[in-house]
């Protein structure tokens, strides 16, 4: 796996959280952005029967997953027939190698990229650069992140952690753009810088939002037009996608599109929905001569082995779960140290990287359920988090753990604590005795109880438990 640099980072969750929380700029950038995104989403679904739409979205994704191997074969057949060359990669590294080989065969020196989270996942840019191929991001947010030598902090809005002033400074440093707080000016400058690159690029690499098996069509959803340029101007286009992105029929795209853009940014639709079903035809004047589709597994087929965890594969990468997550809003995307941050990251990354590398993620949630409430395809995120917590401690002997790295959080102290909990609460008489001792010695309970009282006072036990009160009532003859 080519995930090593990340996995190092994930272990340092707590320090990164601390530094994010202490950074007022990060705090306000995320808070403002998330507030805006939440209200836009809400407005965008006005007048919709949202629950039926989510039912349909989930049903469509489930149907696709239920026939996943067949649909992948069908997609491959139809794509091949239409001239799209299909490649399969078991790991991210294999996918990188496939892409490198395509580039080398064309003597490609420069690659222009549209937004693709899968390519982030497999760290394609690093890989290509090590092979002497320049890979340039063209989505404005990704471009900014690349200039800063960072990784995206959000799957839809990669540069959401930066404000205008920071971006202006960065573009000045790296590209000589004049400093300005005028967003239109900065945008125009980036357009100019990137247009040159588009004209010269030998290969364009993009992601895929939905791959339609029935018609061999790759759907790409975007606002800027960089995705269309990437897939149209260079003579070779490589689309790279996780194997789970396939849907069965063309009409299956309609609810997913309606859900995706509204959930992500509160748009009724993005500026462009780009549907690609083949390379340039003999008599056509533009479009790439070659189109490749790289299907990446990278842990997905293992998730598929488990009916409960498989729900993760329904994800359409809208980011709504992050936008609504109170933890993500506080700590931002980089604190997670994973390609996909936020709730979806917490349920997906343990499969891609192993629980041993994502130790603190499953527990970093209050299980408040805001993510599950907005997920357009009804992924039961809180339930999956609970499942991963259980896997982390091997906590269910009836249903043995299966996720890679399970049991990583098992330790005798915590086990002892929960065994103590069991010992106390499974026996009502013991519990009542405990209650009466607690009330009798209520003034002796400690006022410092670990991290809790660092920020709060701790409550005192009551003078009498409800058990005692009710017992007295019964004995006193009152009802």
């Amino acid at each position, binding site marked *: 796996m080519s995930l090593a640099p990340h996995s190092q980072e994930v272990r340092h969750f707590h320090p990164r959280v601390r530094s994010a929380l202490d950074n007022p700029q990060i705090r306000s950038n995320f808070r403002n952005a998330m507030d805006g995104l939440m209200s836009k989403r809400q407005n965008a679904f006005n007048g919709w029967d949202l629950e039926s739409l989510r039912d349909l979205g989930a049903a469509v994704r489930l149907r696709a997953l239920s026939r996943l191997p067949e649909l992948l074969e069908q997609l491959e057949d139809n794509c091949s027939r239409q001239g799209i060359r299909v490649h399969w990669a078991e790991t991210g590294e294999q996918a990188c190698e496939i892409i490198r080989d395509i580039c080398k065969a064309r003597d490609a020196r420069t690659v222009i990229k549209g937004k693709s989270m899968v390519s982030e996942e497999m760290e394609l840019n690093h890989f290509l650069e090590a092979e002497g191929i320049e890979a340039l991001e063209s989505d404005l947010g990704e471009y900014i992140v690349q200039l800063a030598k960072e990784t995206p902090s959000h799957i839809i809005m990669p540069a959401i952690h930066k404000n205008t002033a920071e971006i202006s400074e960065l573009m000045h440093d790296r590209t000589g753009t004049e400093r300005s707080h005028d967003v239109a000016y900065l*945008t125009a400058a980036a357009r100019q810088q990137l247009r040159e690159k588009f004209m010269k690029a030998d290969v364009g690499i993009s992601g895929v939002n939905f791959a339609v098996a029935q018609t061999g069509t790759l759907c790409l959803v975007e606002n800027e037009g960089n995705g269309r340029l990437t897939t149209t101007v260079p003579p070779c286009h490589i689309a790279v996608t996780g194997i789970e992105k396939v849907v069965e029929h063309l009409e299956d795209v309609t609810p997913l599109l309606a859900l995706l853009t509204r959930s992500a940014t509160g748009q009724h639709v993005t*500026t462009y929905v780009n549907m690609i079903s083949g390379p340039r035809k003999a008599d056509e004047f533009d479009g790439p001569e070659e189109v490749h589709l790289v299907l990446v597994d990278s842990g997905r087929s293992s998730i598929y082995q488990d009916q409960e965890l498989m729900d993760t594969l329904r994800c359409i990468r809208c980011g709504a779960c992050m936008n609504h997550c109170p933890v993500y809003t506080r700590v931002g995307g980089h604190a997670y140290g994973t390609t996909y941050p936020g709730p979806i990251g917490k349920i997906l990354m343990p499969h891609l990287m192993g629980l041993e590398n994502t130790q603190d993620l499953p527990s970093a949630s209050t299980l408040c359920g805001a993510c599950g409430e907005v997920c357009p395809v009804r992924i039961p995120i809180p339930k999956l988090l609970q499942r991963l917590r259980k896997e982390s401690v091997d906590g269910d002997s009836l249903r043995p753990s299966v996720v890679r790295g399970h049991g990583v959080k098992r330790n005798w102290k915590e086990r002892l604590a929960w065994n103590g909990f069991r010992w106390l609460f499974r026996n009502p008489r013991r519990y009542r005795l405990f209650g009466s001792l607690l009330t009798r010695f209520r003034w002796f309970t400690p006022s410092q109880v670990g991290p809790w009282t660092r920020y709060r006072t701790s409550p005192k036990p009551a003078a009498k438990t409800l058990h005692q009160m009710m017992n007295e009532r019964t004995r006193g003859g009152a009802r």
Partner: protein
Amino acid sequence: MTAARTAILQRLRAGRGNQPLSPPASDFSVVRDRDWTTAEKLERFETMITSVNGEVHRVAEDRWVDHLWALMAAKGLTNLLASPETSVGREAWTRQRESGPRLRAYDSPIDDWKPELFNNVDAALTGCRGAIAETGSLILWPTVQEPRLMSLVPPVHFVVLGADQIYATFYQALAEQGWADLGMPANALLISGPSKTADIEQTLAYGVHGPRELVVLILE
């Protein structure tokens, strides 16, 4: 990488094993059924596309070319990429004026004139295959006569749309035009407004990589 293919498919089939999944039925009514009249669809289309900075002009069928010339003059556009072979483009070509914008055709492969297209073309004119009222989207299937980059590279894109060509929803457009049965073209597009971004602090900016302006001429 056929080994990878075999391994992936095998794992997927093994995973599903003896517990076949039975997904619930897909009820599309929520994205399909809208009982809008033609006038309502037109109204809705216009509201939606203007809400994302698209520009709409309703014009009489026999007057649209004059209107186009007037718009171009007002916007200071001096040349126009248009096909001499499509019905829309032909009208522009036949009715071009001495003093008006210079017309040019996309008549050779992009590889031959990339810098010219990227740097010197002011605007492009295309037709479309209809529109979608619900989202304010134009449907384009680029063709040999009207290639993909016409709707993408020039800073201004003019589109001619018949008032009776508007479908209520994407679902209806797909179904009524029979896309799946026709077979999909190499490239099909929904275009809803000019190119935009909000990647810098959630602030909208138009014309980031594609056209800065999208102008729809609706023929009534």
